[in-house]
């Protein structure tokens, strides 16, 4: 592996395949896309295996001078590694999920996905601020196209909403980046992560970055683009949107806002907490009343990502690791839930919950997978969702028990809307003949759901595989944040043991009172 530019290779493979896709017929484009994404998955696995846990913070670094001050610099730490793994894992699944569902302009569609893969990997691997910016912003263009061309009836409005929110955020972020590079004299991200900006400047920089990341996450109240985009996007588009694109916001916070502006981050903890609490309760209640499956899952995504933002700003190891696991877990689980919707959408062409019912009878295997992902979504121990929720909330509790109380109500509301969804789709009697006639999972659908199910259980039972690569990076981040970390609300005071110790009998001190 020594010296082999594996990251660049991972960027180039899908890019070359994407170009080729424009010139071949539909079936060849599908096979080409699948092949390219599988090669990237294999490279990703090699990357993970070769990653030296406990070694250098930045590994697989590549440098090439482009021109004055502008450098092509790649390199990953454990956090980036895990998010790259998530991306390369979901991509072949997305290609397979689109196999039959997409029939028009297949070459262009596959090319859009492949280009997006290149850009997603680029975002997580970029070590130069401007390189990051290019990948970060350009990554959204294929997504607009996927929604706008292959989306549902209302796709223009949805992609417009998506565009509008994102645009405002990115302009502000760009201005902040220019200022930072000017002051710090470098665009090298690892150096910037150690650079101490003046606290007053941090506030403005933090807000500028926040404008961009909050939209991506998305945080309340800039979340309304997400349900619209999900509903209109094709299944695979939703998977990537929920699985990877939403993680860009969380990644932004953990890579930029927290290490580069610790003081400002601490200053804005109340803002983040309040918005997160509102998001959890508000969107969970909204999810409860949705009639459209995709909208319901989209709103649940907002609630889950709110746990991520709150946990990140807990400034401690459990919170940071919990937020990371939540991003990975949510990427898998909500992706899988959208795939589950896609499976029945492909058969009946409606997302309306009431058009289904009683699927446990004619689709028992589907019901089993859907159950597993529903349980993972509501954080059942043994699935990835629990580790995510548990670590995140352990982290926030150390800062604020009150905030954690509100965030934890999400486990009640989450159970409510997910089980209510599951009941209406899978349980009950078969009301509609066409829904009752649907066939169970075919081999292709097995192949896309089973790997995610395995990953969800793996992360739930033995999360060490995922925590270990990130451990040193999280510890370093926590050390950097320590100086600004907010005090908790516990204020534990030692005291004398209490006089009315519970184990003493009431009558004991006065002698045998009863006789």
């Amino acid at each position, binding site marked *: 592996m020594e010296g082999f530019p594996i990251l660049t290779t991972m960027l180039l493979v899908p890019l070359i395949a994407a170009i080729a896709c424009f010139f071949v017929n539909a079936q060849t484009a599908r096979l080409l896309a699948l092949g390219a994404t599988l090669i990237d998955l294999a490279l990703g696995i090699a990357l993970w295996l070769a990653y030296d846990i406990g070694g250098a913070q930045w590994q697989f670094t590549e440098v090439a001078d482009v021109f004055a001050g502008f450098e092509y610099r790649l390199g990953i730490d454990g956090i980036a590694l895990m998010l790259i793994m998530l991306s390369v894992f979901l991509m072949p699944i997305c290609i397979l999920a689109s196999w039959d569902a997409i029939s028009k302009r297949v070459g262009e569609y596959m090319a859009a996905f492949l280009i997006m893969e290149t850009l997603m990997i680029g975002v997580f691997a970029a070590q130069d601020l401007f390189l990051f910016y290019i990948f970060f912003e350009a990554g959204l263009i294929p997504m607009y196209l996927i929604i706008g061309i292959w989306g549902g009836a209302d796709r223009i409005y949805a992609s417009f909403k998506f565009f509008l929110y994102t645009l405002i955020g990115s302009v502000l972020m760009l201005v902040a980046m220019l200022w930072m590079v000017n002051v710090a004299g470098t665009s090298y991200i690892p150096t910037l992560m150690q650079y101490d900006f003046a606290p007053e400047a941090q506030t403005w920089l933090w807000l500028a970055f926040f404008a961009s990341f909050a939209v991506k996450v998305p945080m309340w109240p*800039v979340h309304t683009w997400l349900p619209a985009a999900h509903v209109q996007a094709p299944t695979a588009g939703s998977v990537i949107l929920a699985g990877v694109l939403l993680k860009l916001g969380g990644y932004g916070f953990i890579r930029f806002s927290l290490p580069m502006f610790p003081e400002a981050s601490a200053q804005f903890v109340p803002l983040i907490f309040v918005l997160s609490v509102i998001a959890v309760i508000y969107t969970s209640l909204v999810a409860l009343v949705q009639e459209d499956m995709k909208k319901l899952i989209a709103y649940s995504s907002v609630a889950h990502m709110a746990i991520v933002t709150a946990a990140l700003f807990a400034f401690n190891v459990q919170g940071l690791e919990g937020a990371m696991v939540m991003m990975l877990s949510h990427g898998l689980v909500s992706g899988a839930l959208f795939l589950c919707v896609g499976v029945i959408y492909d058969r009946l062409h409606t997302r309306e919950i009431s058009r289904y019912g009683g699927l446990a009878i004619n689709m028992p295997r589907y019901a089993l997978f859907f159950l597993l992902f529903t349980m993972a979504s509501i954080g059942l121990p043994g699935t990835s969702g629990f580790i995510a929720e548990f670590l995140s909330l352990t982290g926030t509790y150390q800062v604020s028990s009150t905030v954690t109380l509100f965030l934890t109500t999400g486990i009640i509301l989450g159970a409510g809307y997910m089980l209510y969804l599951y009941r209406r789709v899978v349980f009950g009697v078969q009301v509609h003949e066409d829904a009752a006639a649907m066939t169970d999972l075919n081999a292709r659908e097995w192949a896309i759901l089973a790997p995610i199910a395995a990953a969800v259980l793996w992360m739930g039972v033995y999360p060490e595989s995922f925590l270990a690569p990130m451990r040193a990076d999280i510890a370093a981040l926590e050390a950097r944040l320590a100086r600004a970390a907010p005090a908790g609300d516990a204020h534990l005071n030692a005291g004398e*043991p209490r006089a009315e110790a519970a184990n003493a009998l009431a009558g004991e001190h006065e002698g045998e009172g009863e006789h």
Partner: protein
Amino acid sequence: MHPILIIVFAPLLAAIVAGLTNKSAPSVFAKGITTGALFLSAALSWPIFLGFLSGSQEATVVPVLQWVQSGTMDFDWALRVDALTAVMLVVINTVSALVHLYSWGYMEEDPDQPRFFAYLSLFTFAMLMLVTADNLVQMFFGWEGVGLASYLLIGFWFKKPSANAAAIKAFVVNRVGDLGFMLGIFGTFLVFGTVSIPEILGAAPAMSGSTIGAFGYRFYTMDILCILLFIGAMGKSAQLGLHTWLPDAMEGPTPVSALIHAATMVTAGVFMVCRLSPMFETAPTALAIVTFIGAATCLFAATVGTTQWDIKRVIAYSTCSQLGYMFFAAGVGAYGVAMFHLFTHAFFKALLFLGAGSVIHAMHHEQDMRYYGGLRKKIPITFWAMLAGTLAITGVGVLGFFGFAGFYSKDAILEAAFARGTEVSNFAFWAGAFAALLTSFYSWRLMFLTFWGKPRWAESEHIQHAVHHGHDDSEHGNPPVQEDAGDDVAHHVPSPDHADGTAGYHPHESPWSMLVPLIVLTVGAIFAGYVFKYPFIDGSTEGVDPNGFWGNSIYFNEGLIHALHDVPLWVKLTATVVMLLGFAIAWMAYIRDTSIPAKAAKQLGPVYDFLFNKWYFDELYNTIFVKPAFWIGRKFWKIIDIGVIDRFGPDGAAWVVMQGSGAAKRFQSGYLYSYALVMLLGIVAAITWVLL
């Protein structure tokens, strides 16, 4: 390899194999492999329990796999085996094995048997993980695992809307408790820096007297932690306030009610308090709350139990009430006594449920006791088994001679509450004594309505269906209506040909697969109290011994146990007196003059309605939680998301742009290019900036 590994993982493997093969193999495969695994686990559990009784077994922890390490938080998968675990092992595995066997007969005509047996074994695995947990998080894993199995089994007949509603209710109400449990774990980690149970219990006494801020108030540290954890216990063990799911859970098949909603899962809360007893002992306020909630539940559920018509619901409220006894026993510090009642209750309550199942089986799915009567001679083995269960639950026995299981455990609870001598424990004593009267009344009411009197079968819709369509016209296999509550049965058509009230129906005794478990449990209901009273209550057979049977597995209050034995004679006789009183009232009302109940109900009017409608808890919760949640959700969505955020956000921006350009079309198709343009300009600006 330690046998505990087989005990715990055999049911899991069986569940996976049975669940994945499902219908691709004959159902006898799934039934055989799960039942076999459970009998194996049960057979391996008893030697461990007997080993602790004889003192030859040492407490041990068997590591399995690393689980989570995050900063200073560190916990693994591991199986803890001590005396407390051993008690639970025999209870869980014995009842589960018998329920598996019983289900061969009870579920025989159901087409989904592999799924049913897989769920049962999965449940057992989760329950075993709960009781062998060495840290709070693994306990929570088991806690949620049994919750999942309970959800799946309550909703097993998933075509029934009522079963689906009950399943969701059970899960969501339990989640309210879990909220407390989770916050309790977070708080415990914050205070002690660990989630390992032995380490927490070791460090707890030093924290007594310390105070902590939480949720904007200041509390005694140990009080708030224990209260939060107890909220979790309240959910799982259906204590007052979070009890509403348990009666509805009777929608599940009856073997499920016996295993999960009587003998094992619902006792998890009691187990948790006992497991953490050294911690609760440092939290006097929390213990007072445990005592109060337990006593209040015990009384509340017993009052409701006296008015219900559905045989399973009577037993469900009875379970709720008995769990209240266990909690206030723990609350007053008599953890061994609480576990003793848990142990005996598992046998006699599983027996009563399985007996009820046998009655329901014989009566063609009729569950309404108004349509029973005179079954004593028709199903004699079931009758004798249920009689033993009734004698056990009502606590029949003669002081110093012999008593049925409940005689020893329930009396010890009342004595402990009396001996404790605090205000709240006195309340518990009187509440418990009155509840014992009601227990005796509703238990005998159930027996008299079911087995004595003349048959009243003719008016039952189920029986009419059986008579008219032939007995073999099975309703099994997910029919739209099955085991329904019977309250809404409106067909009161007395059959003219059969004036004896039987409508020509002939109830049959259940098959042997169902009767064998009944007989085994009958033995337990008769002897479990007499045989095990010394080790459970006193710690040993040679007098009160804090280092005896329990070892370090629970907090053993030696002084309280001495005091318990020294209570005045009238206290010791109270339980027996109220038991006889309850029997006498039931006999008067349901044997001697059967017009009394209707007259009493009429006379009591509102009080009767209040009890019959379960104190209107469901109506209250619907009004203040469920409906508002949907209403608010709809308002948030329509008014805030669409009406405010979108209107003034993207839609407003679009409007402004359109006003400005007047060319909506061009704008809409051009947005992508403008975005790319902005981005490009940004890059150019960046390069320029850097170059300058």
